[in-house]
């Protein structure tokens, strides 16, 4: 068998293991090892397995992921989500669909301290869903808006997907983080507009809440200052090059911990449990990277990624057409796979094509994140939808999926705008160069 045939068989075996519910990270490592062993030797492959895991898990660059995950976990315990939601509720709650709009705005705010879609959706779901129920909101709209707005967690910095993309493609994390800000704000505005238009069209979906007096609004806004301060400290520091991504994450985590202590929300047992939860998320992400690294070695020996890059480059399509095909692959892949797994699996294959076609890697990173966002709310593996279902078991899974469908329109629109106007992502990072 030629190396390419072995590689194709390896990919087929990988898909079979995925379908058999073997964790994606371990499937990648196992097939990568077996394929590499077949093409070289057992000894070389076995040694590579240990060395790859050792080097990836002890990589200083990857500690940024652990620290930013920790920051989100402490931010959650510090009660920042509640403060954000209260502030947004007081300001926009009385407009049509106001509580859902408030949820979208609070998700965007929480995304500025959390880099995960599920953490954002879970945090806001627990706070916002009971409030929307209280005002008689349609549960399809209510649950759908939380699940969809939770996706902002990986677009507005910090973002775990940007961190992994940066590691896989050797791009500067500060530039990637700042590139996500404008598209993130644009998407927030469009999510809010979607809720508003739906509520104007069918007012019974989202009855307005009682208007809050201005004094109450200002007090609620002032209480959310901690989130803004933490965001500016972390992302501002990265943008101006004051510290490395790991240092930014550690400062963010420590800052969130101090806020939690200041708010009297974090105790020692909670600190340990919050750290434990963050560790489990970090383990999941870093295991994927280590597994993808072993699999990547196997693929490199087969030369399949280079052949794919050459084949795609030779397609009778303009570069924008090829880009569209790649976005489509990511979109369809998102139906079946978690965002993080999809990125670790496909970025090493697609990135050489992006480089050869001369697209900006920072801009492509934002496109990747946007398509990954679609993946976390589309069936059958819409992880955010399952998070909401878990919080509100009485809402049918189908209703949550139906609820997120209108929010795919702004996501597609943002992808389209980003393809037509790359400056939406590239303008802000260009100021820091």
């Amino acid at each position, binding site marked *: 068998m030629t190396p390419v045939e072995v590689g194709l068989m390896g990919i087929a075996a990988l898909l079979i*293991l*995925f*379908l*058999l*519910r*073997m*964790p*994606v*990270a*371990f499937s990648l*490592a*196992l097939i990568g*090892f077996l394929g590499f062993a077949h093409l070289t030797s057992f000894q070389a492959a*076995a*040694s590579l*397995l*240990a*060395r790859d*895991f*050792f080097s990836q*898990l*002890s*990589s*200083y660059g*990857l*500690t940024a992921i*652990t*620290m930013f995950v*920790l920051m989100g976990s402490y931010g959650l315990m510090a009660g920042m989500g509640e403060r954000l939601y209260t502030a947004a509720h007081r300001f926009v709650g009385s407009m049509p669909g106001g509580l859902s709009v408030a949820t979208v705005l609070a998700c965007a705010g929480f995304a500025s301290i959390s880099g995960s879609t599920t953490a954002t959706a879970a945090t806001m779901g627990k706070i916002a869903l009971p409030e929307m129920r209280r005002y008689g909101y349609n549960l399809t709209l209510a649950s759908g808006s939380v699940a969809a707005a939770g996706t902002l967690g990986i677009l507005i910095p910090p973002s775990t997907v940007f961190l992994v993309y940066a590691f896989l493609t050797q791009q500067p994390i500060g530039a990637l983080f700042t590139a996500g800000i404008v598209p993130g704000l644009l998407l927030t505005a469009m999510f809010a507009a979607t809720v508003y238009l739906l509520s104007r069209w069918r007012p019974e979906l989202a009855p307005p809440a009682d208007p809050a007096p201005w004094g109450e609004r200002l007090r609620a806004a002032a209480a959310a200052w901690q989130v803004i301060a933490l965001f500016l400290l972390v992302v501002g520091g990265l943008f101006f090059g*004051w*510290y490395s991504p*790991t*240092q930014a994450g*550690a*400062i963010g*985590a*420590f800052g969130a911990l101090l806020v939690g202590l200041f708010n009297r929300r974090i105790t020692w047992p909670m600190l*340990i449990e919050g*750290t*434990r939860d*963050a*560790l*489990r*998320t*970090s*383990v*999941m992400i*870093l*295991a*994927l990277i280590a597994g993808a690294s072993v699999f990547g070695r196997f693929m490199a020996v087969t030369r399949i990624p280079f052949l794919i890059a050459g084949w795609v480059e030779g397609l009778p399509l303009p570069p924008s057409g090829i880009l569209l095909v790649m976005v489509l692959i990511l979109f369809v892949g998102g139906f*079946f*796979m*978690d965002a*993080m*797994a999809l990125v670790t699996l496909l970025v090493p294959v697609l990135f050489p094509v992006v480089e050869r076609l001369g697209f900006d890697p920072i801009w492509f990173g934002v496109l990747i994140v946007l398509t990954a966002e679609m993946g976390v709310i589309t069936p*059958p*593996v819409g992880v955010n939808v399952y998070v909401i279902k878990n919080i509100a078991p009485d809402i049918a899974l189908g209703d949550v999926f139906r609820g997120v469908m209108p929010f795919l329109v702004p996501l597609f629109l943002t992808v389209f705008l980003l393809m037509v106007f790359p400056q939406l992502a590239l303008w802000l990072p260009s100021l820091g160069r």
Partner: protein
Amino acid sequence: MALRRFARRAAHITETVGVYAVLFIMVLTVIDVIGAKVFVRPVRGSTELVGFAQLVAIAGGMAMACFAGRHVALEFVVERLPQGVQRVVQGFVAVLGLLLFGLLSWQSYLYGKVLAASGQIASTARIPFYPFAYALAVLSAVTALFFAADLGRALAGERQEP
């Protein structure tokens, strides 16, 4: 069941070590930043120490993340299969996981021996690499234990967690 209880206990202990390693990373990095920016005296070898601590944290948390079902896996196909077939699949996946982490443990031990023989040390922190390769070997063995326990469950006809 005894194996599973033992594996879970071992996983809990190694995860707790990992939790303190994560806290160590955060505190050390903050001290390093304050030292470098305010007193122009960064912590010597902090990046290497942070890297080693992360290895202990992630490898230490690997088994418990398996117990907690935190690794990304495609659930939607197997959960539609009959219970008997699910158990066969569970057993098959457990064997593969056991082989993978058994191999990783064994090879990390051999890698540690190579590192010890070569006397390789971290250039700034001046600490040897090999104890961390041995740590990876021990912690991977705990993850292998998880799969061994899972295989036991499949053979005993019990359902998979969570």
